[in-house]
């Protein structure tokens, strides 16, 4: 108990030290204040202090309080992110990096809050229309293909190699073609996302379908379970960890795909359009604001998939926690 108390105090001390170091460093690098060695020392010290704080928090015993655990699960990455942002701000200011190359986070933040209308319209166009539709269709198609492949050994030997081939087509090559085929608006972006998501999903599903335990499969045989019964009651549940791997990877790929596809022709709205044009206009802060939106949306999609995964594959060692 006593040991616990003192470690709490140490933690607070570290936290306060971190905050102080952060504050003073930032004060020291006000725009006109030339960056001296002290600033760099301050930056490094802040980094170290924040890391120590994160390290300490993550060592807290949370086995008794799931609520505390989930709170820390949010707090730690946020702290980590804050540290990164702080360092970014500090380094950009201290090293006087041109905002045309890399704007400081504060400038990006200003953009974010002053251009919400544009950012929202872009988000709807690229994420809600292009990425989501493409993700659903692409993962769905890959999943169905995996099952078709599984059904027929002939297809498995024929389609898988060819599938690898088609799905490994680089996005830069496909995007212009998709624009040619499906027009300028979001359907062509969704098509690109479909192609991008197909391969990771296919590979993972095929691998997952192989992963059912021998004995468990034998059991199904003794019951003369039909193919589909075995599929739904044994092989799909057993494949779920792999399938979710694919879904997770695709959840971020889909967004990248939709954005990048917009580099190759688009109506004048969309996150990819914004990024590709504002770079040319030297509005790098707008580029990063859009990237921020993308990062938030992508992380949220990934997080959503993880939540579903936890619920569906609660039985897997990696979720049950014994694997820790």
């Amino acid at each position, binding site marked *: 108990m006593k040991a616990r108390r003192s470690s709490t105090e140490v933690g607070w001390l570290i936290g306060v030290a971190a905050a102080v170091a952060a504050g003073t460093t930032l004060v020291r690098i006000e725009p006109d204040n030339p960056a001296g060695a002290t600033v760099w020392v301050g930056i490094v010290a802040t980094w170290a202090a924040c890391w120590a704080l994160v390290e300490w928090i993550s060592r807290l015993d949370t086995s008794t309080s799931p609520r505390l655990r989930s709170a820390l699960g949010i707090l730690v990455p946020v702290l980590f992110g804050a540290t990164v942002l702080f360092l970014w701000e500090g380094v950009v200011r201290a090293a006087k990096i*041109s*905002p*045309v*190359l890399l704007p400081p986070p504060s400038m990006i933040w200003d953009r974010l809050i002053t251009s919400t209308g544009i950012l929202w319209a872009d988000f709807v166009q690229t994420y809600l229309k292009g990425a989501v539709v493409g993700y659903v269709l692409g993962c769905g198609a890959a999943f169905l293909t995996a099952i078709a492949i599984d059904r027929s050994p002939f297809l498995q030997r024929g389609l898988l190699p060819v599938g690898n081939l088609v799905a490994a087509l680089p996005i830069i090559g496909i995007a*212009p073609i998709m*624009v*040619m085929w499906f*027009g*300028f608006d979001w359907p062509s972006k969704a098509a690109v996302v479909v192609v991008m998501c197909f391969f990771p999903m296919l590979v993972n599903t095929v691998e997952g379908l192989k992963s059912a335990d021998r004995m468990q499969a034998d059991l199904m045989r003794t019951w003369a379970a039909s193919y589909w019964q075995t599929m739904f009651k044994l092989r799909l549940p057993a494949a779920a960890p792999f399938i979710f791997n694919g879904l997770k990877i695709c959840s971020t790929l889909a967004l990248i795909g939709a954005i990048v596809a*917009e*580099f*190759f*022709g*688009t*109506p*004048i709205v969309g996150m990819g*359009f914004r990024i*590709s*044009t504002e*770079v*040319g*206009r*030297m*509005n*790098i802060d707008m580029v990063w604001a859009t990237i921020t939106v993308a990062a938030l949306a992508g992380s949220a999609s990934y997080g959503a998939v993880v939540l579903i995964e936890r619920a569906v594959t609660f039985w897997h060692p990696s979720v049950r926690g014994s694997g820790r």
Partner: protein
Amino acid sequence: ADKVTLQLKWVTQAQFAGYYVAKDKGFYEEEGLDVEIKPGGPDIAPAQVLAGGGADVILDWMPSALATREKGLPLVNIAQPFKSSGMMLTCLKESGVTGPEDFPGRTLGVWFFGNEYPFLSWMSKLGIPTDGSAGGVTVLKQGFNVDPLLQKQADCISTMTYNEYWQVIDAGITPEELVTFKYEDQGVATLEDGIYVLEDALKDEAFKDKMIRFVRASMKGWKWAEENPDDAAEIVLENDATGAQTEKHQKRMMGEVAKLTAGSDGSLDPADYERTVATLLGGGSDPVITKAPEGAWTHEITDAALK
């Protein structure tokens, strides 16, 4: 020899013949320069490369350079080998477009990435909204090629006299089937393909001297290219690492580019500059630049180079 890195605005093609000729024919070497020519591409913002230290000197269009200057990266035009603008809007006759008054309600392909300023200025001069509101035009971000026109996804697309226009022709459409609107003819021409450096760098005499030699050799290259267009095109082809360019296209491009550079000895004509600025400032509610820039060009280099 002094090292100079030049960042082009686009991929290797006859549009940049002067520089390749100067390098190939040893004009740079004669000036004691070792010039590296970096080709550009769809995602390369030359100004960014310049700011990042990846190049000493860049090519850019003036509208974009002035806008960049307003953003806080002080670009300075030190030479202007291109006298006239090669930009135009090309429409299919069958779409029914006969003049600017037909634009509202049409779909137009436009290059962005800083290349959209001339178009936006023109439209605001015409009073046609481009933001999708009623009575305006629908704007598409045009990709790398002329497909939108061929596939009728757009009624009109942006073309350069020396490049995309001929791609349309090559695709089997005759000039009679096309209607073109040259920016020059519409009175909204802006300066293209100027040579720009950072203002700070010019404070360095040694750098200035390098630039003087660079501009002198480059203009020599341009003039050689104008006189020997076919040979110049060959030189460009040799320098194209992708191996994708065709001789026919490059030779024709060289011919067209020569028409644009013909009127220039390399020094910027202040009148052209003023016209460009006026066009850019004139853009109604959302002008490309908000006030007339100062110090955005200098004759120092060309004066020394061309005497």
